[in-house]
């Protein structure tokens, strides 16, 4: 009976701790828009293309990406899991693209409040956040 209880405790602890650990992991990344955005879903390959400068229209709306730099570690996760490149390669790629074609760089946001405000004020904006940071005003449109 004691052995059974010990196993039960271990299983219960695992069941409770696993989701918490998963939700806390920085790699649990999602692409979000404001809840009022007409953008319903984006294939993750298109997210990558858009962040690399290829124009993208979804549900009749031009998608405008935002770089979430509130956490440097998490930004690195985004670069590796979505863009498959280092920060240096990405920077050089975008520098070269702007130098060739002109155009605006991708907006970078460094605080959560500013991120919320940017998404709220422009429904065309998409960004990446940890799943745990998805607020009630955000809607998930892609997951790597």
């Amino acid at each position, binding site marked *: 009976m004691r052995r059974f209880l010990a196993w039960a405790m271990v299983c219960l602890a695992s069941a409770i701790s696993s989701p918490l650990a998963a939700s806390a992991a920085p790699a649990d990344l999602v692409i979000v828009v404001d809840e009022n955005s007409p953008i319903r879903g984006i294939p993750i390959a298109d997210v*990558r293309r858009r962040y690399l400068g290829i124009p993208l229209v979804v549900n009749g709306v031009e998608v405008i990406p935002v770089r979430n730099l509130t956490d440097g570690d998490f930004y690195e996760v985004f670069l590796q899991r979505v863009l498959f490149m280092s920060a240096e390669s990405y920077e050089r790629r975008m520098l070269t693209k702007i130098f060739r074609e002109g155009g605006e760089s991708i907006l970078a946001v460094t605080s959560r409040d500013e991120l919320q405000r940017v998404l709220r004020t422009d429904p065309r904006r998409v960004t990446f956040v940890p799943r745990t940071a998805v607020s009630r005003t955000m809607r998930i449109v892609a997951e790597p």
Partner: protein
Amino acid sequence: MYWISSLLKARRFLPSRRSPCLLGHEGRNVRAARLRPNFGGYLRRSLGDLLLAASVGTALPIHAAANELIVFPRLEVLHTQGHADEPESTEGIAAASIFYAGDWRQLRALVEFNLQYEHSSTEIVREKEFERAQLGWRFDPANTVWVGRYHTPLGYWNTAHHHGAHLQTSISRPRIHEFEDEGGILPVHFFGLLLQGIQSNHDGALSYDVGAASGPTLSEGALEPVEVLAPQRWGKPSFVGRVSWRPDAVGESEVGGFAAHTRIPVLDPVADEVRQTIGGAFANFDFAPWRLVGELFWVSDAFRSTGKASDFAVAMIEGEYRVSHMWVLFARHEALGAGARDAYLDRFPDYPKARTVGGVRFDITHHQALTFEVARHQRRDGVVYTQTALQWSTAFP
């Protein structure tokens, strides 16, 4: 600009903090004064025009505007071996390409201003010139129509590298892409309209450029494109088109073709006109750590006075090998087609029969590079000589 500094911070896994810049993101943080002490009066006067243009963007509402200002300085020493009647020479070059791009809703601007100071034992040359000055209208996310002076979309190199030395691996440009004021034989700049667009599917992307503009004039053995601010000498209607295909829309590899037709007035004492038709193909294969660029040009010229047409072909191939994240080896060979005899080409006696270039680039930091290059020139009269160059280049900030 701001996103570049942000990325630098992100590389160190630190939360980014807004840093001062010349023209901050979305039109904020104007700190033009930071440029002044370093470049002297010559640069100040030249930058005035550029900053005036840039300030237009900053005056617009914050959420409507996005600006980039990037400076590409370079220092270079070029040694040329004595050959034929030319003595050995060493030349020092200090230059900066100042690039500005701004978007205000559908309106776009792109300006590239080049400052150059060359010092040799025989002469000092100062240049300041708007190399690109374009105003555009983005009528949908994938298509923009531009008006102004632009780099003609001929081949790969002329659309890829422009004047930002730091972004190209080698020091020299392929001779066929040389700028007009450096002895270039093709119209590298047009002044007029340019339609630029990209269409992509789930895998690849098709890019296109179509231009209708004024071409250059030819005077005393040199092409002269239309200037932006200086007294303008207009050429004749000219046309250019380019199509390229990227199998992977976000990759670097691409293949494509291009064509142009230019009427070039000859403004020498005996007035004439050259009708020049250009066609060609290019490919850029990026298989890290290898990269291979190849270009093929066919150029046909007909002088109005004689009515005779002649043509020549030029081929170029460049290979690069990234040894590590800091070292890149490169080599390039350019050649004029055998038996080329062209009355237009004869006006450019310095254009070589062949040129072979080899070198190494060392990335000191992510934004600074030191490049060493050796080039062997073979002139059409058989004279052979060597040029050696050392360059420091950077992108700021």
